[in-house]
Each structure stands twice: as C-alpha cells, then as structure tokens.
C-alpha cells in the first residue's frame, strides 16, 4: 500500500490492459450499462456476448491486479457495488451492501480532502525545479557578448556566427550535465 498523500489520489496503471484501475472500472460500468439497456431477443445476442466478453475480461484483470492507492480502492468498490454485476447482483440490497457503500463514501471523502495538499505539493515541487536550475544559469554566460564571439571565432578561424552556434550547443550540453 502506497501511503504518500500525493500518490493516493492517482489510480495505478494495470499494464496488462494499459489502463488504470479508475479507467478500467469506468469502462466496465459503461459496458455493463450498455448490455443492460439492450433489447431482449436473439438478434442482439452476438453484440451482447461481445460486450460481456470485454467487460468480464477487464474485470478479471482489475480483480487480479494489486490495489495500491485510495483511488484504486474507489474504482474496485464501484464495480462491487454495481447493481447488475456487483455483490448484490440479483439480490435485494442488504446490510452488507450498506456497509460497503459506507466504506466507499469514507474513501471518496478522504480523497477529496487530499486534493488541496496535492496543489501545495505541486507548488513546492515547482519551486524545487527553479532551485535546481538556478546555479546552472548563474555559472557561465549563456550567450557570448560581441567581444567573446569575435575572439572565439578568430582563435580558430570561423565566423562569429559559427562561434555563437557552437557556444550555444556547448552551453546546452553543460546544462544537461548539470541536471544529470
């Protein structure tokens, strides 16, 4: 279980399907709702089978993946609470389901309360990026002045413009080295 506040609001990717828990859950519910809304009768059977195959495959992947964040918990609970395919499919709504619904409400509320903390983290993270870049900009002139360009060019027999291009490339390489 990942406990950092920052990561709790993000849903974990499930590599086998290329979707996060949250995206897969939303897709499953969308597919099930489409099946539910289809008219009865044999002519829709193929389409129904196709949709069933897709959502049940996704559900198997979601249920076998390791839940890591609160957002993943919410995504799984949404499947478990679905009236057609969840814990109570075909059954009247009992005490157990009310308990799970309460769990879902608490998880959703705590996720909401984490959002401002995430914004604050983004603020601090951005300040940190500028901090990291500060020394490199300071360390050497980013652009040669005219005297530098002329002296540098004369020393090796190129034009000042060629020297400027060369200098710019050297500075870029220097900054990449600083950042590494």
């Amino acid at each position, binding site marked *: 279980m990942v406990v950092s506040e920052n990561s709790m609001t993000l849903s974990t990717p499930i590599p086998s399907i290329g979707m996060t828990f949250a995206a897969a859950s939303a897709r499953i519910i969308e597919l099930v709702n489409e099946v539910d809304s289809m008219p009865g009768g044999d002519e829709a059977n193929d389409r129904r089978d196709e949709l069933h195959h897709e959502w049940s495959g996704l559900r198997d992947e979601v249920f076998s993946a390791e839940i890591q964040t609160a957002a993943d918990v919410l995504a799984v609970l949404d499947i478990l609470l679905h009236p057609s395919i969840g814990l109570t499919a075909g059954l009247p709504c009992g005490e157990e389901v009310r308990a799970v619904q309460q769990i879902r409400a608490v998880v959703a509320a705590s996720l909401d309360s984490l959002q*401002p903390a995430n*914004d*604050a983290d*983004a*603020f*601090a*993270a*951005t*300040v940190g*990026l*500028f*901090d990291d*870049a*500060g*020394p490199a*900009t*300071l360390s050497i*002139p*980013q*652009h040669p002045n005219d005297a530098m360009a002329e002296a540098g060019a004369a020393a090796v027999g190129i034009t000042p413009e060629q020297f400027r291009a060369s200098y710019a490339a050297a500075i870029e390489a220097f900054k990449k080295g600083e950042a590494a």
Partner: protein
Amino acid sequence: MSTIIAFPTMDRGATVRPVILPEVEVEHQPLRLCADWQADIAAECRRQRTLNPGVFHFLKSAGLLDRCTFCASDKPGGPLILRHIGVPTLEKLGRAWGRSMLGHPLDESPHAEFAHSVEAQYGAAISSGELLLNRVEVHGIGAPFAYTHLLVGWEDSRRRAVLSAIDLQQAV
C-alpha cells in the same frame, strides 16, 4: 498613455508622485505591449492557473527560462527568496551579485532601493492575482538601463512565488 504607479510599501499615505525614488522609475503598462515571447508566457501561465511543474517545463522547453527571474518564499508568510536569476538580471547587476544573492531574500541585496522597488512590484503581482507588465528604468547602478518585465504571481497557503520575464529595453 501609461501611468506611473507608486507602490504602497514605498510611501504609505503619501500622495502619488511621478518618481518613487531617485534611481528607479516604474511605469505600469497594458499587457498588449508585451513582447511576443512574454505574451506566450502570459498565455501559458493563464492556462496552467496554478504554479505547477508544467509552468517550469514550458519555460525550459521554449528556451525562455534564461530570461526569467523566479522568487518564492521558503515558508508560509516568509520573505521572497531568489531561486533563479535570469540572464538579463545577471548582465545588469553582475554575476558576482547573482552568486551572492541566489538563495537569499531580495531585501539582502546591496542595491537596497532597487530591491525595495522590485519587491513592491512582485508583491503587487502576487496580491492582485493579475498579470502585470511594468517598464522599469534604473539610474545609478552601472550604466543606466531599462527593461519591461511581465510579472506572474502565485499564492498558495500563504506561500508566495513570482516569475519576472525580463525584456531589456533601450534606456532613454
């Protein structure tokens, strides 16, 4: 016509004067007078709304970071500290100044009057929540120089940050 603004921290309660200090003149200008690259930064910061890594990565990938000075407080309510000093600032105030000031509060600058003016402008950008464009002319620190800077301010849980995107101009 542009107007000349006296910033309140300089002379609280005084009547508006055309020149705040003997050395530093600040003219507030409409945003439409931004250079194109300053306008690009303004548009991106509006789009991002909050201060987040996207702002930094935009500046970096657009090659505009070098033209920007960035300050942020260390803790809620703390003073603005220089985090990244743009090349125009280094050209005018010197690399030695930059080395001694990086990581320090603005008000530690030996150019006290200039620093106070800059700090007041930064404060105005942060507290107004508006993008500001100021034209600044400085006499008495080396050769006279002038620039415009687009100011973008952010505030989050009493932490403050400001970006100054500097376009050097011909001093009059």
